[in-house]
């Protein structure tokens, strides 16, 4: 038996822990998700990026078993997300306006720990999230950033295999944001699958192994942050010039032109070629900068929301 077992290829992708397969979800006439697929793998941070209303929240709610797909399937550990085996493998940090504010930090954590079969120790959670000094404080007296940390603690308290983080660093100062980032990296390093939705592209760039760009319920582009950035014009040229946008668009390898204060930003695959042609046409060119396109540029270019 063991002699015939196929060898696992060295470059096999990590095992999927949760996935959406060709999921369609409609609310009335509106398709929030349209044959949308997503795979969350062990040890990977996946960032789901898209404009408001793109379907990010619906994707998260489907994987949490909070709603059912009209077509396709949602799976966590190969099971229905509503099954108890799947639920105990999930931790979620959702956008919560407020929690019952008369319970203390420790009490909130103890309560959520009781839902899981093998929770992390309370002391460990308090230390990891920097809440040890606040454990007796009531939730209502915490600052916005401290509340976010409590919600993060609740998401990881059950030592789940799959962690959903919906805008985890909203309202955090830079230092605390970096702390959360290192915790997210630690989760992935510990073999968890993490799904991150965020409006901070810098955050996706810093944390995600894979980015899935979503718009109107469909995948626009998926890949590593590097691949996404390079899938649009790889470079941007910023300068002051007399040339009109119409002329600039005709130049070789140019993919886009935008007005930017007193100058223009030109997106191009080969900025050298563009500049070679621009310089003889306009001798007044000034304030020239050439830089790599940011994830933000890629995001705007791919989701058409400039």
């Amino acid at each position: 038996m063991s002699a015939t077992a196929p060898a696992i290829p060295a470059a096999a992708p990590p095992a999927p822990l949760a996935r959406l397969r060709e999921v369609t979800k409609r609310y009335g006439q509106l398709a929030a998700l349209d044959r949308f697929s997503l795979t969350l793998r062990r040890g990977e941070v996946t960032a789901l990026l898209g404009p408001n209303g793109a379907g990010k929240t619906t994707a998260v709610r489907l994987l949490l078993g909070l709603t059912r797909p009209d077509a396709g399937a949602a799976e966590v550990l190969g099971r229905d997300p509503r099954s108890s085996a799947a639920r105990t493998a999930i931790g979620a940090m959702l956008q919560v306006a407020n929690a019952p504010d008369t319970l203390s930090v420790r009490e909130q954590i103890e309560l959520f720990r009781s839902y899981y079969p093998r929770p992390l120790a309370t002391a460990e959670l308090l230390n990891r999230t920097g809440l040890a000094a606040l454990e007796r404080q009531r939730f209502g007296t915490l600052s916005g950033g401290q509340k976010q940390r409590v919600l993060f603690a609740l998401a990881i308290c059950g030592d789940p295999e799959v962690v959903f983080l919906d805008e985890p660093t909203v309202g955090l100062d830079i230092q605390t944001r970096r702390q959360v980032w290192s915790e997210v990296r630690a989760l992935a390093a510990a073999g968890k699958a993490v799904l991150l939705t965020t409006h901070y592209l810098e955050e996706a760039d810093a944390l995600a192994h894979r980015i899935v760009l979503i718009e109107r319920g469909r995948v626009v582009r998926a890949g590593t942050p590097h691949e996404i950035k390079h899938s649009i014009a790889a470079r941007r040229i910023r300068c002051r010039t007399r040339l009109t946008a119409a002329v600039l668009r005709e130049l070789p390898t140019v993919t886009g032109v935008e007005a930017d204060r007193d100058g223009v930003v030109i997106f191009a695959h080969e900025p050298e070629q563009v500049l070679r042609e621009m310089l003889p046409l306009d001798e007044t060119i000034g304030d020239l900068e050439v830089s790599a396109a940011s994830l933000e540029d890629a995001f705007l270019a791919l989701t058409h929301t400039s």
Partner: protein
Amino acid sequence: MIQAVLTAEARTPGAARLHAALMELKYEFIRLMRTRAYSLSVLGFPLMFYLLFGIGQRSSAAAQYVIAGYSCFGLGSACLFGIGLGIAFERAQGWLELKWASPMPRLVYLAAKMAASATFALIVMGLLIGLGVTAGRAHVSLAQAAELAGILLVGSIPFTALGLLVALIAPPKAAAGIINLVYIPVSFASGFWMPMRMLPHWLQAAAPALPTYHLGRLALGVFGLASGKHALEHWLVLASCSVLMFAAAWITFVRSEAKSP
């Protein structure tokens, strides 16, 4: 014993559910107790009314009437504000969704809210009986107190259903106002405050349409103060009202689920 269940780390699925249920109940009760607007009004109003209207009653029967009536009133406020307002708030803030996404056993959420509110109702009853027996002229035997407690516990089921329905229908910010607006007149019309025969005739005729009226009759029956129908009839009305309200709440919940993006 409870502590042993609470601290045990390796649990069977059944023990784990029990543990989660006890923790949920414990913290729901603590939450309500610390929410002063709730604990002070739910415990305070019946006591204040008893001191105003009950303590001076000359006959034991009148004092018993006030104890039974205000205990029912206390149960209603405990459940409607604890469950109705509690769920409305947690739903509006996104907290309910976070709990729903966790492995918290579904029924435990509602059961803990019901049990915590019922506990408040029993405290109200205990305080009223204590006041009535010591400072007033009420005679209440242990058996009567136990029977009244049993009726209040079962009576918390229809009030839980009503609270749930209010939480799902009423806009969260208006929920407290709506509960007050409906519950105060309803409790008056159900004979919680004064004997039915002192109410206007049309109200006496309309009262049997209210489930609270039937709860009041059962509570008064403990002291032999309810005339007329058989207790079974009152229980049947309460049971069917509970089923109807739970069904309405379920339908409302499923519909709102389908709409929310």
